[in-house]
Each structure stands twice: as C-alpha cells, then as structure tokens.
C-alpha cells in the first residue's frame, strides 16, 4: 500500500491505496465521484478526462499515487445542478449530448481548450482539439456548437 494526499475539488483527501490504483478508480471507487467515466480503459476515448494542476489528463492512464500533492478537478467540481458551469449549460442548450456517457470528459476537455486557446474558437480548432474524446451518439456536430457557445459564455463568467 502507498499513501497519497491530493486536493480533489477543493478538499484535501488522504488515503492508503494499492499503487496500481488508477486515478479514475480512485475517484470513482474510493471517493464515490462517479461523474468521471471509464469508457474504453485503453486511453482512447477521453470519457475519463479530469484536470490535474489545471491540465486535462486521462485519469484511466494515470496512477493515483502519481498525483500525490496535486490538485484534481472533476466534473463534480465545476458546477452544481442549480448553478451549472457555463460549459455545462452550453451543452444542455445546444443538445450537445444524447446518452451523456462521453459528456463529463467532453466538458473537462472543452474547458481545457478554452483555458489554452481563448473564448473565440472556430469549428476547425474545436474538432482538432477534441481529437482525444470519442462520442458514440451525437455525430459531434452539436458538441462542436456547444463548445463554441460555452467558450463565449465563459468570457462573461
């Protein structure tokens, strides 16, 4: 077992874990933050994307122990059902989801894109930057619209 301490959505947590515990497993099974999804478990789909020290990463391809001392933000940490994050609101407005399985990862990746590329995002940029997020339902069109709208809404946050 190995000890790990990290800040998750603003709160410090310490736990003793088997070193092979993935960050995704740690969030879901130890902290019961089940908003982070595991779609493929082979690093392809992006359903598991969370932010570690402000950068998007695939939590299925990161050890929990490697995040010792880090600050982690999951989909639960960005808004509440009453006060959705502007990117969450944009996905709802633009019908950017159907089954919703890919959505937490899409939203965490989308916020990361805005952090890096700003609030005016063209379609080409959004599609390129969502390379690591796969959706089986929507055909991406409304996701792209949602990200563009969410990016603008975040400017007025």
């Amino acid at each position: 077992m190995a000890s790990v301490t990290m800040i998750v959505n603003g709160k410090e947590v310490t736990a003793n874990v088997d070193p092979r515990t993935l960050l995704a497993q740690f969030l879901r099974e130890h902290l019961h933050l089940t908003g982070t999804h595991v779609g493929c478990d082979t690093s392809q789909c992006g359903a598991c994307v969370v932010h570690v020290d402000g950068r998007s990463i695939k939590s299925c391809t990161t050890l929990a122990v490697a995040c010792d001392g880090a600050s982690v933000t999951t989909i639960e940490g960005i808004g509440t059902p009453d006060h959705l994050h502007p990117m969450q609101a944009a996905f709802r407005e633009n019908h950017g989801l159907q089954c919703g399985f890919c959505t937490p990862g899409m939203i965490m990746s989308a916020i990361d894109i805005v952090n890096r590329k700003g609030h005016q995002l063209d379609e080409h940029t959004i599609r390129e930057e969502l390379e690591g997020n796969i959706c089986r339902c929507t055909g991406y069109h409304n996701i792209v619209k949602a990200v563009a709208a969410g990016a603008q809404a975040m400017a007025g946050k």
Partner: protein
Amino acid sequence: MYAFSYHSPKTVRQAATLLGKNPDAKVLAGGQTLLPTMKQRLASPSALVDLGKAEGMSGIEVKGRNVVIGAMTRHADVATSAIVGEAIPALAALAGGIGDPAVRNRGTIGGSIANNDPAADYPSAVLALGATIITNKRKIPADQFFQGMFSTALEEGEVIVKVSFPIPSKAAYEKFPNPASRYAMVGVFVAKKGSETRVAVTGAGSDGVFRSAECEAALKARFNPKSLDGVKVKASGLNSDIHASSEYRAHLIPVIAKRAVAKAMAK
C-alpha cells in the same frame, strides 16, 4: 495490471539506486505507453520508479548552439515553448502533433525516445537533428541510440536525463497519419545544418526509425523539393501491415519528404 511496488525518488541518483536494487523495475515517466502496456499485462515490472518528482528533469534551455530539453518535459510544454518555437519550430510542431491534448499533457520526450516505438514521432527529430541523449551515465549520439524497434542503447538502470538538439538552419517534420490511430504511417523529419542534410523516417521501417540514404543523396546537391523528383525508395525492410503495404510506404517516403522540404524552405 499486476501488482508492483511504487517509488518516488527526489533525484536522478536516487532513481538509479532504486533501479539497481530492483532488477525488473521500470522507470515511470508520463505513463502514456507504460500504463496501457501494464494494463494489457504485456509488461509486469515488480517496481515502478516514478520520475515525476525527481529534480532537474524537466525544462527547456538554450546552451550555446543547442536546445536542451529535460527528459520529463511534457509534449505540451515542448509544443508551446517560446524557446523551441524560436530555435527549432519544427520540433515544437512535431510535439504539438503527438496524440491528443490529454496525452500531450502527460507524455514526455524521455519516455517517447526510451520507448522507441517504430511509429513514434520524436525519434525522427532526434535522428535527423543529430541530437545527443544525455543519461545519468554518459552521452549517446542519436546515430548510436536507436537499435531497432522498441530497442535502444540504454543499459539496465540507465536513465535519460536530457536531450540536446543542435539548432539547424532549416528543418521540418511532415507526418502522414493513420486515419484511425493518428500514429505515423510515414513521418519524415528533414534537417539542414551547414552543408549536411539529414532525412529521418519513422512509421515505415520494420526496424524502427532510420535515415533515408536515397533522400539524403538527392538533397545533398540542392536542398529543394524538386531534388526529390523521381527518387525511388526500396520497399525491402519496410513494414507491411493491414494499414499499408511496404511498396505503399516506400512510395510515400519521397512524397512526404518533398512536403517536408517545401515546409522547411517556407520558414
């Protein structure tokens, strides 16, 4: 994934000691290759030595006529580095084209080079630019480092600390990605420094990255896309798989090299 013990050394020296004590230990860098391999049980190290907290292993600086990049520097940091963008823009562009943003936020240059995947992007830059791989034990020139697919000159317990890239006068990387995996089916890095032109090819060779003698000979007299007209590359020694035959890859090499030269001249 099989169980392992986890170590988080604070220095390269500690890392080397830990590797010495645990014969089938492995170094963990960004984990973007190693963890998927361990999940599939294709690797089962008894111990992981995580370089994430080892001091002095990441960062980018100019030293004389070289850009020196720490082994733990993430692809995203090379891609957006002002220093790399100024001195070797082709290298920044290459790093920005690896995988997707989340992979670039974790994956490291040291991990990519140590792994020497036959379709990885970085090895072509290291070979074409004639970089030097600096380990905890010695300095290894690129021409001696890559030794066939997934195999390098690194010895047991040897850790890459830095990679030093001589600044070229002209360089560019052009990749023909597989439409599904986005890994290179053929990737060509061309670099011109003084009178020397080097052309390194990734994705195509069944022994991993290699220098194309045919393309280098054609570009020797004149560094110009036209010099590559009519150049034929032999299909023997190239990969044939469900994605492309060796003949197809052989045809692609001068085509992609030509695009790379045009890109290098446009800068």
